[in-house]
């Protein structure tokens, strides 16, 4: 590692004084971590949906209420919405070039995702706890 220079920052950052917000790496990395998690959770969800398909109301509730199913469903909902926000954020940043529209959309997707996540998690908990 000694072959590398001590200064890790791109010189362009100093030159312009308009460098990145420094959050790019964590965005990139969290998107990958959630992607890996969703490979497993996504396949599991398809299997669950196929089992719920011809179940009646009581049987569907019973299936979701099982501890592992409830845990994995909550994990799926949280991970999937998180991954979705990260992905949509990149799409919006790439294609929406009017600043106020961009900022509005970036906030809107976060608000919707957080509300939908909380609602979904609460629903699973209510089913799992028999409320």
């Amino acid at each position, binding site marked *: 590692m000694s072959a590398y220079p001590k200064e890790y920052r791109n010189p362009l950052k100093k030159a312009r004084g308009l460098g990145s917000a420094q959050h790019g790496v964590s965005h990139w990395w969290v998107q990958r971590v959630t992607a890996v998690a969703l490979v497993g959770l996504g396949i599991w969800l398809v299997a669950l949906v196929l089992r719920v398909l011809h179940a009646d109301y009581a049987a569907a509730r019973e299936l979701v209420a099982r501890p592992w199913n409830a845990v994995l469903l909550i994990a799926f909902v949280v991970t999937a919405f998180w991954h*979705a926000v990260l992905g949509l954020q990149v799409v919006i940043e790439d294609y929406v070039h009017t600043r106020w529209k961009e900022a509005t959309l970036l906030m809107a997707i976060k608000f919707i995702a957080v509300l939908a996540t909380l609602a979904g998690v609460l*629903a699973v908990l209510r089913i799992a706890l028999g409320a």
Partner: protein
Amino acid sequence: MADTRRPLSPHLSVYKWQVQMVTSILHRATGIALSVGLLLIAWGLLALAGGEERFGHFTAFVGSPVGIILLIGWSWALFYHLCNGIRHLVQDGGYGYEIVQFVRSSWASIIVSLLLTAAVWAYVLTLGAAA
């Protein structure tokens, strides 16, 4: 956001169409579609928690012609995003960048996702006929 003049996406008109572009565009398009699909999953969970009548409204929508068409679209979007997502994770590891491999894996994402969609719906329809 730095207020600098730099090239911004999309620059689709610059390139001749090739399969790698299609897989990239489809990855974004299916990601957006799946984000909306997540809201359907949240609705399903809320309906299941909310009682038999509300779950009935949900299953009536999902089982309607429009619902089935949407579900077929979403299932393909899920399998495509899954296959191509795994492809991207492999590429993040630094593999598969030879042009031949890149083109071949692009086609693999498309073809495998179509096969998985067909397999799942064949299962659903035969199960429905048996039930």
